[in-house]
């Protein structure tokens, strides 16, 4: 008799299984897309877009942020996104560097 009589609100299990299914689907799609003959820039953009969607699903549902108080979300996420966006400032320089190399 290990169960105790507690009344807690739990989201339906089905939601998590659906999210898991989507994540597996996106993973298979990424593997398939990796074999398309696209320019590296396009490939990077497509794969990172899918990864951001997957990360959003994990944060929202598995990490439960979707169900937390808005003040927590607003404290954590905009700051994180801003810092990561700032880290990207130098990224276009990689393309300049590539084009500077003798072909």
């Amino acid at each position: 008799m290990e169960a105790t009589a507690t009344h807690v609100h739990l989201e339906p299990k089905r939601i998590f299984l659906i999210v898991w299914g989507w994540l597996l689907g996106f993973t298979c799609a990424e593997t398939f897309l990796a074999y398309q003959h696209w320019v590296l820039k396009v490939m990077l953009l497509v794969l990172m877009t899918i990864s951001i969607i997957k990360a959003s699903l994990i944060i929202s549902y598995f990490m439960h942020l979707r169900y937390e108080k808005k003040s927590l979300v607003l404290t954590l996420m905009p700051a994180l996104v801003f810092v990561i966006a700032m880290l990207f400032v130098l990224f276009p320089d990689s393309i300049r560097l590539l084009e500077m190399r003798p072909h």
Partner: protein
Amino acid sequence: MASQDTIVSLHSAQSRESVWSGGVSPYAVLPKKLGMWLFIVSDAITFSCLIIAYSYVRMASQNWPRPFPFWPSIVNATVMTVVLLTSSITVVMAVRASKVGLRGRAAWWLMATMLGGILFDVLHIHEWLGLIGEGVRLFNNPWGTPLFGGTFFTLTGLHMLHVTIGVVYLGVIAWGFKRSKFTADDVEISGLYWHFVDLVWMFLFPLVYLLSAKTI
């Protein structure tokens, strides 16, 4: 009438103040859960720095090696991704079981998650040994840009360290929760860490493996 207004304004001032003064939890989460979230944010920035630095070098290099054939490397990495995603579902089940007081079942789900983590590590070490056997080192490799080895081992090594720490962490929580030493909140917080480890891999898998897949 004036005194009533004063009382009303005092009440509203108190309620405004109480939210942010610590009297009422402004985030409606336990301090240890907020602590885990802040750790996750800081660790996310660490990984972001490494991932962006890797992407920079990858984009700027003309002869970046593509040493991963579809079989076994890409299939292996895809299976590792599926294993991590599945271990995220088992940790969700552990959290659900812990919330309704099913201590034994929660511990069982946590152990299933640990098994996923161990399997992930085994597959990853197998991959590492294969590359080392082919001559990949931190500062050179047989194929092209020397930085390939350094970036590969740093990114995947740091992630593997997180997975290994996660397995130990979940083991401690499973053991303690079964013996009523920890609460359902501790299970949830350990779950947050595990999901984060899963989340980071969602970026490493395409960047490190798929963008270096050997194409025909």
